[in-house]
């Protein structure tokens, strides 16, 4: 004990004497605050994950049914786009405006359920998955030749892929156990060499693999020429001569390239590709802007110009994601409302904890009054007690949320390779903590008024 006593000593002793009630009330506030902060940060993380993925793209062209579908498919790999765009159309769009860049993409293949995007090498240099931070390689380099593949961070971590490994991609986006799972069909005679691993970007691109367009075209052209019926393997999973038979026992790595099919292969070289075999599913576009600016009047103009072409769908990704978040936003406010209810109930529990100990406190209040404390001082002591519970609870809760968020994001980044940012917004933390403290003080008013109005004499008589 120090050389002097203060009102704070009285408050702290009083809380300590009723350690159980104090602990329960503090714990409830901590849980409520942590829950509220985690919910808010999950909300933030989800919307960030969507906002991030569109990167520095201005316009997205595809043959999907709607702009939103185009964005979800083309930038978030929701599904492989069903309708292709011809190379001729791509050239026409590329030459139709002095774009800052114009990148063709082709989706449809997969590797253990992860989407494979065939694109041009510009994708790594010009497209930024998160505006302002371009792709970076944690190992290796971008693809330079056919049948080289660059792997997103999450896929590399998930499947333990390393530079130099050979992998086999599957046609279609089978989500099963192997590369050639049901619905898919392995390109077993064309293994790809892993030449680069990307650093995590915190966007959907971490879950994808990237190859050049020519390899993809060659594989599909060979298949088309082998099966002139034109039916894709997706529709004929039980085709007796399907290359998938050769390696169903193998998950698709390494040995798959040792194919020895009895039948003749129609090997196709790049030069042999016909124009109608050069199909893509999307075009990423960026309009030149002034340095430091991300917008240009030309975006809207080009959007309107391209929209007149009914054979394609044009989307402004940022706008589409904004619309999507507006849709989701209404739902996730429910979670926030739930957390607020939890916070309110913890305030009620502070009030209950303090009122239930009121009989004990009344004697204490009476003694303090006899010793010369005014009713106001006693009122202030009671309010301070509940405020302190709110303060400590909010502190513990915020620490729990920040620590939990840190652990969760670290684990996600290390184990899964997913970067979730904005764990707990400090402003939100301060706001929520302040709210908890205010609520706790309000909860303290009723017991404080009771303390204020405690008649001294009745509580000093010996218990009869």
């Amino acid at each position, binding site marked *: *004990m120090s*050389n*002097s*006593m*203060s009102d704070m*000593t*009285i408050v702290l*002793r*009083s809380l*300590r*004497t009723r350690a159980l009630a104090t602990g329960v009330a503090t714990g409830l506030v901590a849980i409520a605050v942590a829950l509220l902060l985690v919910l808010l940060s999950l909300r933030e993380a989800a919307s960030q994950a969507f906002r991030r993925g569109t990167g520095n793209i201005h316009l997205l062209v595809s043959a999907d049914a709607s702009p939103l579908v185009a964005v979800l498919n083309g930038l978030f790999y929701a599904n492989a786009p069903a309708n292709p765009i011809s190379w001729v159309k791509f050239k026409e769009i590329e030459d139709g405006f002095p774009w800052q860049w114009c990148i063709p993409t082709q989706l449809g293949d997969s590797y253990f359920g992860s989407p494979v995007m065939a694109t041009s090498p510009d994708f790594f240099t010009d497209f930024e998955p998160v505006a302002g931070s371009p792709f970076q390689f944690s190992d290796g380099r971008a693809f330079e030749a056919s049948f080289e593949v660059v792997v997103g961070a999450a896929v590399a971590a998930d499947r333990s892929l390393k530079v130099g490994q050979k992998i086999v991609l599957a046609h279609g986006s089978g989500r099963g156990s192997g590369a050639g799972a049901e619905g898919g069909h392995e390109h077993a005679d064309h293994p790809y060499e892993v030449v680069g691993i990307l650093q995590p970007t915190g966007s959907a691109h971490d879950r994808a693999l990237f190859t050049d367009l020519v390899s993809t075209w060659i594989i599909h052209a060979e298949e088309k020429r082998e099966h002139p019926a034109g039916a894709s393997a997706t529709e004929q999973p039980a085709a007796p001569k399907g290359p998938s038979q050769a390696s169903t026992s193998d998950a698709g790595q390494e040995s798959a390239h040792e194919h020895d099919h009895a039948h003749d292969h129609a090997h196709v070289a790049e030069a042999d590709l016909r124009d109608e075999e050069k199909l893509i599913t999307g075009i990423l576009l960026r309009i030149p802007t002034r340095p430091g600016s991300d917008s240009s009047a030309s975006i809207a103009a080009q959007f309107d110009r391209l929209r007149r072409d009914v054979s394609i769908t044009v989307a402004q990704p940022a706008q589409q994601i904004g619309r999507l978040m507006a849709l989701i936003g209404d739902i996730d406010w429910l979670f926030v409302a739930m957390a607020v209810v939890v916070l309110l109930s913890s305030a009620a529990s502070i009030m209950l904890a303090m009122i239930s100990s009121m009989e004990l406190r009344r*004697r*204490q209040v*009476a*003694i*303090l*009054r*006899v*010793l*010369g*404390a*005014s*009713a*106001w*001082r006693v009122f202030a002591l009671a309010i301070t007690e509940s405020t302190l519970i709110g303060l400590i609870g909010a502190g513990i809760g915020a620490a729990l949320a920040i620590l939990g968020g840190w652990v969760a994001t670290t684990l996600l980044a290390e184990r899964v390779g997913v970067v979730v940012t904005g764990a707990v917004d400090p402003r939100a933390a301060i706001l929520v903590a302040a709210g908890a403290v205010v609520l706790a003080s309000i909860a303290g008013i009723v017991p404080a008024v009771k303390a204020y109005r405690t*008649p*001294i*004499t009745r509580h*000093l*008589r*010996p*218990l009869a």
Partner: protein
Amino acid sequence: MEVARLDVPAGEQALFAGSSGCGKSTLLHLIAGIETPESGSILIGGTDICALSGGARDTFRGRHVGMVFQTFQLLHGFTALENVMLSLMLGAPTLDRPRIRAEAALERLGMLELHAPVERLSVGQQQRVAVARAVVTEPSVVLADEPTASLDPANAATAVELIRGAAQAAGAALIVTSHDPSLRSAFTRIVDVAQFGLPAPAPRVGAAR
């Protein structure tokens, strides 16, 4: 209850005698200013406490009145020393070196276990802490409400001596209430509280609110 006039001069020690329920405690609480009379005035050292506002009366009580209760009414969770220091902090914050004063008050009463929580002290030790707490602020008047009621006769005599000695040392007037006739021999001034009672037992007596 009706009191025409009752004086206890400075430094005097008085026994307010009477059977249980005759209004001894009420009279004491009126003097302490924790109950208010329907009419009239109560002067302590020239100050009419009935004319003071609630807060001022609390402050005045803290500074000028020391109270000892039958059940001691010590604050649990605090040590013996802290209980005494609380009295200084709340009642006489202007007095310097509160810790030294509190230690001295306890030691004068033979209380040496300063740092034990009061709820673990013996009855005799608690009594000493209660008395030390009442006199440490150097009050004008010490009020002791049935200080012997829960003690055996031998301890009761010791307790009364303790309180009387402490009040005298502090230069305070002392009023002790008791229903115990054996205490009468110790006091020269004895006030029979029953005389203030109205003819019919009045249930409204002493109702503070």
